[in-house]
């Protein structure tokens, strides 16, 4: 039976109205930002040393975080997806907890664990002379703490969805576990992996609470873009606006570039 054109076009009005309100709510702050930006001073402000320091530091640390999350997160995701070990549920709950925890709380926890007098930090200090707070390493640690769960849970979901028979075939063909993982499993979970990496990277880029509490706030060393924006708010509101805009632009452009190539597969029903 053919559907009449009118039938196909009938939209549920209440849902549409609420959805539009939601879009307006999310969109309007960006418009407000664009409206207040001092465009004439844009290049001057962007070339200021503190802004450039913050931009460079943010990019450096967030990329480092993405790499660390990949190296440590993928094995963990594999373990959670494939091996039924005691405490698996607990680890997964831990990941979720870390994701919903207010970042400042994460920062305090990191401080009292890895700080100079911290649970582990005191030994790092007395045995190895390693002091973490106020260093760029601490920034990466804070970012990893909040970002890793995004990668782990995304990759785990991808692995779970994978048909394990592909790996079975590969093994019967003579592929070692590592070879199979590298050439069959990883390429198959590319969408989840990329999505997880992008989420983790974006979360790391925007990280504020844990960074300022654990790593501190020093231009050039620990003052990432979000911290610089907050610091500029009182002294130099125009810088704060420009910084905010730069962050929006960077995040937006990366997401646009990636979306078409990798995340487009999300429409095919793959997780995230």
């Amino acid at each position, binding site marked *: 039976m053919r559907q009449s054109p009118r039938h196909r076009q009938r939209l549920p009005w209440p849902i549409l109205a609420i959805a539009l309100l939601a879009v307006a709510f999310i969109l309007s702050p960006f418009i407000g930002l664009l409206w207040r930006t001092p465009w004439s001073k844009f290049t001057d402000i962007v070339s200021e040393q503190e802004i450039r320091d913050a931009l460079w530091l943010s990019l450096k640390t967030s990329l480092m975080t993405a790499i660390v999350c990949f190296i440590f997160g993928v094995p963990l995701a594999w373990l959670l997806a494939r091996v039924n070990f005691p405490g698996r549920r607990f680890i997964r709950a831990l990941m979720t907890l870390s994701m919903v925890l207010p970042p400042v709380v994460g920062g305090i926890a990191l401080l009292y664990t890895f700080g100079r007098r911290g649970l582990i930090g005191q030994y790092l200090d007395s045995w190895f002379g390693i002091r973490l707070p106020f260093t760029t390493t601490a920034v990466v640690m804070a970012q990893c703490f909040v970002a890793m769960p995004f990668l782990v849970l995304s990759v785990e979901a991808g692995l779970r969805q994978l048909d394990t028979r592909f790996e079975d075939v590969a093994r019967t063909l003579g592929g070692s576990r590592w070879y199979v993982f590298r050439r069959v499993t990883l390429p198959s979970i590319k969408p989840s992996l990329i999505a997880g990496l992008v989420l983790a990277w974006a979360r790391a880029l925007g990280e504020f609470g844990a960074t300022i509490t654990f790593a501190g706030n*020093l231009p050039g060393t620990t003052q990432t873009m979000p911290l610089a924006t907050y610091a500029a708010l*009182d002294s130099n509101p125009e810088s704060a606006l420009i910084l905010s805009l730069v962050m929006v632009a960077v995040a937006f452009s990366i997401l646009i570039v990636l979306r078409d190539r990798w995340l487009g597969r999300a429409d095919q029903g793959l997780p995230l």
Partner: protein
Amino acid sequence: MFARHVLVSALVPIMLFSACASSPESQEQTTLEVYAASSLAMPFAEAGVAFEKEHPGVKVQFNLGASSDLARFVQEGAPADVFASADIANMDKVETQDLLDSQSVIFATNYLEIIVEKGNPLNILSLEDLTDPDLIFVTTSPDVPIGKYTAEVLKKAGVSVTPDSFESNVKGIMLKVASGEADAGIVYHSEVVASDGQVKGVQIPTEFNIVAKYPIGIIKNSANKNQAQEFIDFLLSPKGQALLTQYGFKTP
């Protein structure tokens, strides 16, 4: 038919939002919103209790933070009744924009002190000792009063110190030094008193020290100007002043 649905579905979120916004006060009780610098936390808490006892029907609510943050909130239209700043500069920001009801008054003063970890393990005795590059010294950004005062003191003493972090407010400095994460910082004398032994204070010679003046003013848009004035009067009264000196502040 559809229009009605749209109206209803639009009203729901609007009603929810307005419910979340500030609720009107009951006729019996007034709430006084006092925006105060972080360093005033302890004396104001006690002052609030004492004031409420003397003025039944008035509840005092404090919003504490860096004076620069608070000044910004007031400029953006926050519903404050009273603003107590840790320096004149931040009060000026508000006063020059004609946001005060009448001229602000200085109700207390403070001076600076070096703080170190309990027991002073690194044996820091003067401002010069802070110049050690291996020393972890923390302060706040110059917009926050304590950060500006610290820079003034160091300049007076002709001493150059590189901070390792710019905390959000004076409490951040206290936390870092008390927990042993930072070796030293410079805060108000009142903070040392309030810390009750958690940090050790090292005196700064008077010739290098500054006097921090704390102004307080009533916000023009306040709906509770009478109660606000009463609160300020209380702070200026012998009782209020005694409370402040108890916490290390000095009379104006």
